[in-house]
């Protein structure tokens, strides 16, 4: 297991968001966490990089306890991650190129030429190589998200966490992002954890899908088994997105 939740509980605003959650994520898989809004999907993700600390239990990353890590140890664990925030979280006073170059400039000894080459390689991957000079305020939400993705993967992290990578995007851009996430797993063996309520995206990219409800995982299955699940919460979620349990569902390779 590269990421492991051991009996993790978290209360926020008086509400139990995670309730003795046990979860294991294998190296190299694309693990998708689905569920309706407010069930704790993003909270789960934030525990992995210690933006949140469990009230009880612990979160392990590659054998190290991230929930108790501090200072240099925490920085070491975090350097294994890339994180795509819902809104991109780009620094407003830096242009797209400078935003993507930021982790390389701050945390590596690469020369400016090497940085430039690496940044443009990554921007080409997300289709933003012609928008490198634009500022976050001058680009669309989808482009901001793609720039955020470029920044998350530019330093070749082992694990990439995606918080709602396709929310607010048009279907074509959403599928482009899906293809990119899938490609990272296939070509580079990157472990991805994706939080989404877009089941179409989850079924397309996930190697395993977990449904979070009431602070616990109510279903954990491969996409093929997930659509056949008889768990009522899953059934309702599938129906809400017009995905039939009875009809044939086939995974299309990206």
């Amino acid at each position, binding site marked *: 297991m590269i990421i492991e939740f051991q009996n993790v509980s978290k*209360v926020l*605003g008086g509400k139990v968001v995670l309730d003795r959650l046990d979860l294991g994520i294998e190296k190299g898989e694309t693990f998708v966490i689905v569920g309706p809004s407010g069930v704790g999907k993003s909270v789960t993700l934030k525990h992995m990089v210690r933006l949140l600390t469990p009230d009880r239990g612990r979160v392990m990353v590659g054998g190290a306890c991230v929930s108790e890590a501090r200072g240099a140890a925490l920085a070491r664990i975090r350097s294994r991650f890339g994180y795509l925030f819902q809104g991109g979280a780009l620094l407003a006073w830096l242009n797209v190129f400078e935003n993507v170059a930021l982790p390389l400039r701050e*945390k590596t000894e690469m020369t400016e030429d090497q940085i430039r080459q690496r940044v443009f390689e990554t921007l080409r991957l997300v289709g933003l190589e012609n928008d490198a000079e634009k500022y976050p305020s001058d680009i669309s939400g989808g482009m901001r998200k793609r720039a955020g993705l470029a920044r998350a993967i530019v330093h070749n992290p082992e694990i990439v966490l995606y918080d709602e990578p396709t929310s607010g995007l048009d279907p074509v851009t959403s599928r482009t992002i899906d293809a990119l996430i899938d490609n990272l797993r296939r070509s580079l063996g990157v472990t991805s954890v994706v939080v989404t309520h877009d089941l179409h995206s989850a079924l397309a990219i996930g190697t395993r899908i977990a449904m979070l409800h009431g602070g616990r995982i109510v279903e954990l299955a491969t996409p093929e088994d997930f659509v056949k699940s008889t768990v009522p919460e899953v059934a309702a979620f599938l129906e809400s997105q017009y995905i039939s349990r009875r009809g044939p569902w086939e995974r299309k390779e990206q």
Partner: protein
Amino acid sequence: MITREPENFAPPVNKFGEIGRELLMFCREVGRAVLLLVQALWAVRHIVRRRARAEIVLQMFTAGIRSLGVITIVAVFTGMILALQTGIELRRFNQEVHIGTAVMVSMLREMGPFMTGLILAACVGSAMAAQLGTMTISEEIAALEIMSIDPVRFLVMPRLVAMMVMTPVLSFYTCIMGVLGGGLVGATQLGVSWTAYIENATRFAENKDLYVGLLKALLFGMIITTVACHEGFATTHGAVGVGMATRRSVITSFLLMLIVGYFVTRLFYV
């Protein structure tokens, strides 16, 4: 970690419990602000990095050059008011020639650093709190932390260094402009020649007045930056929270500058 986790508190059992909690929260926030200042001062060792130096120069430009217009106007009029008020009183004793001393000493000891501090808290401190508050709300601070980029080194240290340099410089500039404003009133409305005014102004002012004023300005620069950055990082509740952080930053800076200013005066002059 700069990014704060939401906190869960059980409702207080009675009024005393509520007051006690508020007191503890206040003490904790003071502790966090002091710790932020210490961390930022410790981060000054990274000043050798080219990018850090570039950011400091940018912040110095923002704090200094962009505030120069308003500081000039405020300084000149402060000197003019001081000269006019003291001149009217001194004229009753035919001693209006001494307005130079009054203006010079007041500007160097108190008005120069304090007026500079007020303007910088309102113009620069509020902008810092708003910028960092917006960054906190939009998860940019969290993004920096995940990239293992220390927000204190990356954001607070350049601002602190810039303000520690620019506040004394601007305070000195305020003093000069204030004295010139006082001289203008003396020459045009009180019948005091420029020569007599400058001679009086320089005769009684001591080097100590200048040093203490500059020390106050340095402390005010540190207060403004620490308060603004602390409030920015503590921002919650979206755009409303950013507005509240900005407001709190200006008010707290004003109050702290008054209190610290008093104690510095007491330390050096009593």
